């Protein structure tokens, strides 16, 4: 599985494979992942005056920008070609997005700057990276959705408009986060990023699986943090968390749209290949989140969470949600699943430790090989665990037996 590669320092032979992994998607909706620049490179110095974030430091962990086969997208949603598209569902979604629940919600106040000034020491760096990564990830969504909105206008105006409205949401989120960075005397040059970043190519089918998961996992992460902090307000060190309850409803709705997109292309949901891909993307997203978060456990502990318990809860709930659309999901509540995840964390830590030694790169690579093999083996074993049959009741074979 390539997902775990996202956590390693760049190893050339795996790099090309990486461009088709879900590492971005796992990172995109994981606002608390912090760039893993600490292992071999010193952290970029943060000037105290307002400054642009230093130029683009591309690593495997940096939230990616995505592009896709737009021609294929157009074909998939062309209303003339596809007479079976469920127009009612898309019209319903369009109405829901047009409603714009959060139109007036993302409003800042002076609390932000005041709180930011109080965050000093190592937590400050962690926060800055969180804001930066989240902003980049939201912005990445903005770009992709905007482009899709533009490209699909003629072939399916309803779907195109939904993409545009989703890009409106993402722009709002990104803007809000970028303003948060300004509380720490920094800002992301989004215009520069748009032009200078490399874009990762994903076929439409993979965009659907992966983005659905990342939106839904984003919802669960945000709402879990929000509700936890509501119950434990002494950990709310920065006001942005208070916005999460409304914010995450946007994410949830975005996920619903991808659900409808997949239902409009039942070939992505109804055969053995679909089941295999479903399990693959679930595993990639869950593992990457778990490994990333365990590396940055200081952040979660800083807001009063037990990192692994937080992650398991998010995984379990995301999996349960995903079971409403994917034809197969992982048996995440099986205790063996968590045991595998924990073993992967340990192996990953050893891999990172190798990176920190003073050996020459060749020696480091040699040392990593058995560790990577061990990690791959755990991933494969997790993938091969007996899955859970699932899916929307609109398609599921087991529907006639259901009692509601």
């Amino acid at each position, binding site marked *: 599985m390539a997902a775990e590669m996202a956590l390693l320092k760049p190893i050339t032979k795996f790099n090309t494979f990486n461009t088709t992994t879900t590492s971005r998607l796992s990172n995109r909706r994981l606002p608390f992942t912090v760039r893993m620049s600490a292992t071999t490179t010193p952290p970029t110095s943060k000037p105290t005056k307002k400054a642009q974030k230093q130029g683009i430091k591309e690593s495997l962990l940096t939230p990616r920008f995505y592009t896709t086969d737009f021609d294929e997208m157009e074909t998939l949603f062309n209303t003339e070609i596809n007479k079976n598209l469920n127009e*009612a*569902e898309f*019209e*319903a*979604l369009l*109405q*829901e997005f047009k*409603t714009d*629940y959060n139109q*007036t919600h993302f409003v800042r106040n002076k609390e932000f700057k005041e709180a930011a000034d109080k965050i000093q020491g190592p937590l400050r760096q962690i926060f800055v990276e969180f804001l930066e990564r989240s902003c980049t990830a939201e912005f990445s969504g903005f770009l992709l959705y905007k482009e899709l909105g533009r490209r699909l206008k003629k072939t399916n105006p309803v779907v195109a408009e939904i993409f545009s409205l989703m890009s409106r949401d993402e722009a709002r989120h990104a803007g809000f986060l970028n303003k948060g960075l300004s509380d720490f005397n920094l800002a992301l040059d989004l215009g520069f990023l748009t032009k200078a970043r490399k874009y990762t190519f994903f076929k439409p089918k993979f965009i659907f699986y992966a983005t659905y998961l990342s939106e839904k996992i984003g*919802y669960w992460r945000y*709402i*879990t943090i929000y*509700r*936890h902090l*509501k*119950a434990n307000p002494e950990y709310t060190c920065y006001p942005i968390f208070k916005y999460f*309850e*409304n914010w995450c*409803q946007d994410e*949830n709705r975005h996920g*619903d749209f991808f*659900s*409808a997109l997949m239902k409009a292309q039942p070939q992505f949901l109804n055969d053995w290949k679909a089941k295999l891909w479903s399990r693959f993307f679930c595993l990639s997203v869950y593992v990457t989140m778990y490994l990333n978060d365990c590396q940055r456990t200081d952040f979660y502990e800083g807001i009063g*969470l*037990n990192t692994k*318990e*937080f992650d*398991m*809860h998010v995984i*379990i*709930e995301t999996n349960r949600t995903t079971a*409403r*659309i994917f034809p197969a999901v992982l048996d995440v509540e099986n205790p063996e699943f968590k045991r595998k995840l924990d073993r992967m964390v340990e192996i990953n830590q050893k891999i990172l430790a190798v990176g920190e030694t003073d050996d020459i790169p060749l020696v480091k690579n040699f040392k990593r090989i058995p560790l990577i093999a061990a990690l791959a083996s755990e991933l494969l074993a997790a993938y091969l665990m007996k899955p859970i049959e699932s899916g*929307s*009741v*609109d398609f599921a074979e087991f529907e006639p037996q*259901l*009692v*509601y």
Partner: protein
Amino acid sequence: MSASTALNLGSLCSSVVNLPTHYSHKPSLLLHGTQSQQFLTLPNTVLKGFSGSRNMKSAVAAVDSSDPAEKQETERKKYYFLVANAKFMLDEEEHFQEQLFERLRLFGERDKEQDFWLVIEPKFLDKFPNITKRLKRPAVALVSTNGPWITFMKLRLDRVLQESFEADSTEEALACTPVNLEFEKPEKWTAPYPKYESGWWEPFLPPGSQTSKV
């Protein structure tokens, strides 16, 4: 809030309104943002049994199906609904609760009449034997006059049955049988936060049926 505009009968109908005597001023029900104009029927007879109060602000009829009010000429409306067992609708789907509160908040902000309700053990289910034969009871329905929104909610909830029907009035559409609901604590709770409290659904129940749930 929209309730006050709804109370202004002048804007609702210019003719005299037929009000049964025992439905006098019940302002507390109106706070739930009901579409009180739908409880008013346009009379084709002289007003009957009206208690003579010139305060026409309380034209709210309860959902009690033994309502003796005459059904006068009404607008027949289509009601769309999703239904599943009460445990699923009210206890398991916490994101659903968030959505409903978000929508209620939005309607308040935009001064819109509430057009969606949760109905516990709705009477209209009797019309749908194909649904009731695969439904665990007690059942709860999400009802709305906004068809596309119900379609969206079906997409979100998925494990529900969707249908629609027509009714002459909201009280008829939302008539229900009171049920005492109690849910057991979940066996497994993995969240770092407490479960939402029971009874969260009160603001969404049809007007009149809230009182029995207190």
